């Protein structure tokens, strides 16, 4: 069944948890805004897809996760990485193609991973993650850890066969898997209202025997609550869930995209729907957290990002000796 969840879950979150969530979202935001600026200078190579605007999704979901749990991400992976605890400086160095990067410069923006954190990688293949997450969920089940697997994927990816058949497999095997469809309205320049033949992606859940939920992706608490329910159910053996998170990305599909296909929906989103602004209003309004505490986070994050960029720029590139290593464990 498909429905919209109310957002009323602040109660369960301690002030510390709220500050953590805020820090994560702010880190993602500043990371992405900064990568956007740095990309414009021409120093960052390759294809870069920014997650700004979508912070509540990665954060709302991953704030429920721990070391037992694994996530798979997409080409738009920075936010998921940060939310799952990947080192921010190593990420920035990776984006700059440096030896100190998360992947020693071999992966780049589209392949940042940290297996030790249960972050199974950004992924350059649309629909690449959901099958893998069936596997991490299976491993958790086999090992009885109570862990879950979470696949983040876009509206575009929701039309890919690999994603769809993973939904079925997860149900058939009753896996502790959560499928988070991040519907940001577009796959490249194609609107999801056009490419997704059903009204909502969540409507597909029923066809694969699992609950489908739609949440407001600008609202951390909405995501947090829906994810919490799904994850708890999964940990208890109740099987998979499909969660559709609806929002807008703040930047183009990738850096360089002129975005002539869309009207000024971003300005409105930034002004009125910004998950960070809404979070701040909500938690300060209720008195759970002070403005000062949040401001402190802001400046700490800003310093972190500054340092990350500075260190990334200074760091050495990989060298000839690195070219042919790491293909196999043994060969």
């Amino acid at each position, binding site marked *: 069944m498909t429905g919209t969840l109310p957002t009323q879950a602040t109660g369960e979150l301690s002030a510390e948890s709220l500050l953590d969530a805020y820090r994560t979202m702010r880190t993602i935001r500043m990371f992405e805004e900064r990568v956007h600026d740095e990309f414009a200078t021409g120093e960052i190579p*390759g294809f870069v897809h920014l997650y700004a605007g979508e912070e509540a999704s990665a954060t709302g979901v991953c704030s429920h996760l721990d070391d037992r749990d694994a996530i798979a991400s997409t080409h738009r992976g920075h936010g998921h990485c940060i939310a799952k605890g990947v080192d921010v400086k190593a990420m920035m160095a990776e984006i700059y193609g440096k030896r100190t990067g998360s992947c020693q410069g071999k992966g780049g923006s589209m392949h940042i991973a940290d297996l030790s954190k249960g972050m199974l990688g950004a992924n350059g293949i649309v629909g690449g993650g959901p099958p893998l997450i069936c596997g991490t969920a299976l491993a958790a089940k086999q090992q009885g850890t109570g862990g879950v697997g979470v696949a983040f994927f876009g509206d575009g990816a929701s039309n890919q066969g690999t994603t769809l058949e993973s939904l079925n497999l997860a149900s058939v095997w009753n896996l502790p898997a959560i499928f988070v469809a991040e519907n940001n309205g577009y796959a490249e320049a*194609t609107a*999801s209202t056009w490419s997704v033949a059903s009204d909502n992606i969540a409507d597909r859940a029923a066809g694969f025997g699992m609950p489908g939920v739609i949440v407001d992706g600008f609202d951390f608490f909405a995501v947090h609550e829906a994810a919490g329910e799904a994850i708890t159910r999964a940990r208890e053996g109740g099987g998979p869930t499909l969660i559709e998170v609806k929002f807008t990305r703040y930047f183009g599909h990738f850096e360089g995209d002129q975005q002539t296909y869309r009207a000024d929906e971003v300005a409105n989103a930034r002004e009125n729907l910004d998950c960070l602004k809404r979070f701040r209003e909500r938690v300060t309004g209720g008195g759970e957290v002070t403005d000062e505490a949040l401001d402190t986070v802001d400046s700490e994050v800003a310093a972190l990002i500054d340092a990350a960029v500075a260190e990334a720029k200074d760091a050495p590139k990989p060298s000839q000796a690195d070219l042919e290593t790491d293909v196999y464990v043994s060969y």
Partner: protein
Amino acid sequence: MAREISYREALNETLRQEMERDQSVIVMGEDNSGGAGSPAGEQDAWGGVLGVTKGLYHQFPGRVLDTPISESAFVGAAIGAATRGQRPVAELMFIDFMGVCFDQIFNQAAKFRYMFGGKAVTPVVIRTMYGAGLRAAAQHSQSLYPLFTSIPGLKVAMPSNPYEAKGLLTQAIRDDDPVIFCEHKALYDSIGEVPEESYTIPFGEANIVREGDDVTIVALGRMVSVASEAADQLASSGVQADVLDPRTTSPLDTDTILESVENTGRLVVVDEATPRCNVATDISALVAKEAFGSLRAPIEMVTAPHTPVPFSDALEDMYIPDAQRVINAAKSVVEWER
């Protein structure tokens, strides 16, 4: 002076001319127009991720189809439509994405004619981008044409410059067999002379890019210009290279390659693909079998290493075969003594 346009423009012009010439030619792929369903409504917002199909949408109403991200379905649809009178040109954005739709290509399109006893005709073209150099990392930089080359029933074209791009794409569209058309992403902005009128370049006829008697250099796709650069430098040190561009790896112009080696006695093959079971090994084996008697030195292959494509520019620049490596290989075979 003749007109000069880019590889991208040459491809775009070809699609335009073939669509004008033949109603049955249709184009499809992710954002080949771009903007589908967008409330702001600018259609043709992209014209393909790197702009190759730009402008066709408005000129040919209903014949440029955007697709959801479901390569099996739309590549399969192109194939199915080809069996029913269309000449679809489907775009598999990056060749790296073949893994989500390979079945439709190699088990369906490639095999119909044989499996069905010669009764099927499947004139589909699959345009796809390959190659390293854009810092696009391991899943967006591969040179996977050897896999397609290995499949009976497919033809594989690899245009090395704008002129080749136009002539080979025209041929691909008019050809009655399935063609995998491999565009090197680092060539799109390269400029060259291209006639305005339509012309075809037949498949299976190598282009002799440069003549020389000391060593044969066979190079593929973007490697043709790398080999030419190497040949220039070799010439200045007295080594004259025959540089061949096979243009299509399937069919392969074995005659021209063998004739050249029979003359030079030496072979270097330059292939951007990883080294195992690639086209370099294929051509080397051909020569070791058919022209052994003429061979005067070991065959050298200049290829990428047996690794995924690295992201960092520092590594990627070492990864891609360059002129220096071709020069070294050529010199080593020229100087080789038993």
